[in-house]
């Protein structure tokens, strides 16, 4: 078969007549059925429609496939097989005009047209056209527009996304991508993933979240505004939602649960691991605008009689689960705060040194009921990465990270979010 190198657009061939070897028209091209391929999905069948009936023609039987003519190698025999299967992927029914995830651009876009290319003997789905050119092509106005563009020296740019960077939505369509490419979404930065999830229509949310690992999903949800993430969570079933909540840092989980109704929040908490649930509930008890409401009750701590080695072991043990590892707090069995060590100090000290020797005594702290202004002042004045929060009786309740307090106060909270994402290490 002779095909042009730059590929064929689906809109150019759809609804064109399909003729057999003898020149008889057997119908119009109604749709194209695909099967998984490596690296791109392949065309398996063409669906041809005549007088309301749809028949299938295997790709192997096609002689010519281009915008001018679509023809068969021979004649159409028999009934042509079952026209449409529910779990098969068709280009027009399932992809054209529907939304997909542009993994590269981290956004949800709509498919205006599909681009097919020949690779050896197979016709593959190479790219999707999401730009206005695609719309114009479908309407038949592209040539006129290009002419105008040429005259005005302002051509309309192409906006095509390689299929490799596309994550289709919908249960059927995920079968089109094989294992190698399936994890495209998981590689995205949590903030990008959060942005994509917030753009998804309801029905696709649980499918997409299902395809992600729990911790990736938890991180992504943590990046979203609590209003949006609470909405996403309410789309999932309770045990799935609880699993995701467990993967989020307790303060973010508390923020999300605060957005839900009490009954829903209690339900999700009951599905969670009891330890995690307890941590989240402690945080839910505090007023939003106080230090207690903003704090995270997971932090690194070590006993007063420990050595630097012990502290480092502790760090390695807990750091995977904890957001903020800049400081290690020296806390006794009664949870009283004695001092604080920065990670830098720990790294520079020799292993047998007792932590009591190198820690900073009397660290600056606030109460669970303290106003956030106080926390902010401490962070700014003493350049702290986190401020410890104490209960009435002096027991350590949690820490407020500089990130969180800045986000609360700066009007450019958006920009801070991006900065925080860059700093993730």
């Amino acid at each position, binding site marked *: 078969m002779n095909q042009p190198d730059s590929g064929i657009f689906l809109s150019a061939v759809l609804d064109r007549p399909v003729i057999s070897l003898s020149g008889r028209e057997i119908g119009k091209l109604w749709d194209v059925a695909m099967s998984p391929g490596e690296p791109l999905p392949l065309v398996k069948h063409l669906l041809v429609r005549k007088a309301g009936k749809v028949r299938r023609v295997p790709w192997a039987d096609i002689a010519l496939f281009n915008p001018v003519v679509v023809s068969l190698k021979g004649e159409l025999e028999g009934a042509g097989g079952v026209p449409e299967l529910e779990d098969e992927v068709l280009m027009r029914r399932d992809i054209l005009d529907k939304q997909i995830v542009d993994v590269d651009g981290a956004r949800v876009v*709509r498919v205006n047209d599909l681009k097919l290319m020949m690779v050896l003997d197979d016709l593959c789905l190479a790219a999707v056209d999401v730009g206005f050119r695609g*719309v114009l092509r479908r*309407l038949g106005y592209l040539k006129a527009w290009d002419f105008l563009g040429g005259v005005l020296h302002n051509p309309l740019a192409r906006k095509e996304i390689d299929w490799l960077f596309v994550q289709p939505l919908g249960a059927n369509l995920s079968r089109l991508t094989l294992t190698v490419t399936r994890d495209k979404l998981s590689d995205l930065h949590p903030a990008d993933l959060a942005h994509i999830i917030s753009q998804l*229509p309801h*029905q696709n949310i649980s499918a997409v979240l299902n395809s992600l690992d729990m911790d990736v999903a938890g991180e992504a949800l943590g990046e979203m505004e609590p209003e949006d993430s609470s909405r996403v969570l309410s789309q999932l079933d309770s045990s799935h939602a609880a699993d995701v909540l467990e993967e989020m840092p307790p303060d973010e989980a508390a923020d999300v649960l605060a957005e839900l109704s009490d009954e829903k929040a209690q339900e999700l908490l009951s599905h969670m691991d009891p330890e995690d649930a307890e941590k989240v509930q402690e945080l*839910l*008890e505090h*007023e939003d*605008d106080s230090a207690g409401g903003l704090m995270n009750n997971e932090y690194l701590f070590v006993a007063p009689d420990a050595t630097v080695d012990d502290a480092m072991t502790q760090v390695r043990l807990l750091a995977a689960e904890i957001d903020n590892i800049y400081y290690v707090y020296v806390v006794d069995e009664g949870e009283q705060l004695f001092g604080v060590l920065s990670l830098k100090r720990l790294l520079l000290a020799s292993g047998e040194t007792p932590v009591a020797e190198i820690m900073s005594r009397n660290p600056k702290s606030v109460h669970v009921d303290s106003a956030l202004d106080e926390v902010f002042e401490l962070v700014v004045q003493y350049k702290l990465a986190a401020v410890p929060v104490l209960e009435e009786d002096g027991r350590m309740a949690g820490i407020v990270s500089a990130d969180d307090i800045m986000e609360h106060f700066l009007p450019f909270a958006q920009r801070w979010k991006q900065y925080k994402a860059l700093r993730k290490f």
Partner: protein
Amino acid sequence: MTATKIIAPLRKLNRRNVFMFLALLGPGIITANVDNDAGGITTYSLAGAQFGLSLLWIMLPTTVALVVVQEMCARMGAVTGKGLSDLIRESFGVKITFYVMIALLLTNLGNTVSEFAGIAASMELFGISKYMSVPLGAVVVWLLIVKGSYRIVEKVFLVACLVYIAYPVAAFMSGPDWGVVLKASVVPDFKVTPDAVTMMIGIVGTTIAPWMQFYQQASVVEKGITKENYAFSRLDVIVGCFMAIVVAFFIVVACAATIFKAGIRIETAADAALALTPLVGRYATTLFAIGLFNASLFAACVLPLSTSYYICEGLGWELGVGKDFREAPQFFWLFTIIIAVSAGIILLPGAPLIAIMFISQVVNGAVLPFVLIIMLMLINDKRLMGDYVNKATFNIIAWATVVIVMGLTVVMTLDIIFPGFIARLMGN
């Protein structure tokens, strides 16, 4: 565990929860109140002034149709989680979406022109020339969209809507024969004239404007309402429609009792303001002007913004006021052009403001059946709506609306082309 339960009610009273409650003041109520915009007030006033109570009977069936249509949109939004232009795109493809968007753009352009006419007319009642109020108004609207917080604008508008209470009160104070009014609300008693037919289309068009369907569905989606908490949405639609119709009803009655009785023909907004004299005497004009200005200004913000939103959504362009001109050029240019062109048309010398406001509503009425047909096809699609497809009653009411309004439009158009057509139809 117990601590949380005890704290819970206290948590409910904090600032954020109060705001959330206000935020949930639903899409239905907002949509319905914007219904009484410049075009609405004008159309209802004209109906009462020119036909007295004889067209009052149309309010009840129109209300029923309005509730049905808005509920369908809310239901589609809750069940599918997608806006109306999204659904049209996904079910009917890009060609139909394109032409629907063009129709939407044109009708909304007409509506926006009408809003600026309202701004001009209301400010003229304070003695401010339209050459000052309209450009200023356009700039304010543009700034409100680009810089303002939509939520705050919404709340301010709703509070200002309280001005409409003036109409029911004025209606009562003008002391019509309530027996006659009640009879006129249910029994049709009018002469079929070309003017009457046009007015009927206008009333339907201003009450069930096509942009309202898109707006209702988009708001429901944005609030994140799903089929589980959809019942709240339904209530919100019904309450909203009821509120809008009450105001409309009393505008007609008040105008019928004062202006029609006096035999005045409404040419300017000042004439329409006369309807409020029984209530407030000299202050009638001021009150009317405030109401008209408030409605026009808010609608002038909502219409261009939402039109650009739906068009960009349907055609796949970037959108959102959070972005700037470079990131979402089509979105910004669309609403800027809509505002500029609408304001420009009003500034033409001798522009007949009242006529403009009225005609734009008639156009709404003419386009409505097409949007309804598309909606009916979508809402009866089992694959899309599952168990939430239309019940038979809803289908009947909706289809009846389509047929009747289309019929009226055809009759009106034929009469325009062949004058005297309606008279012949009635056997005169």
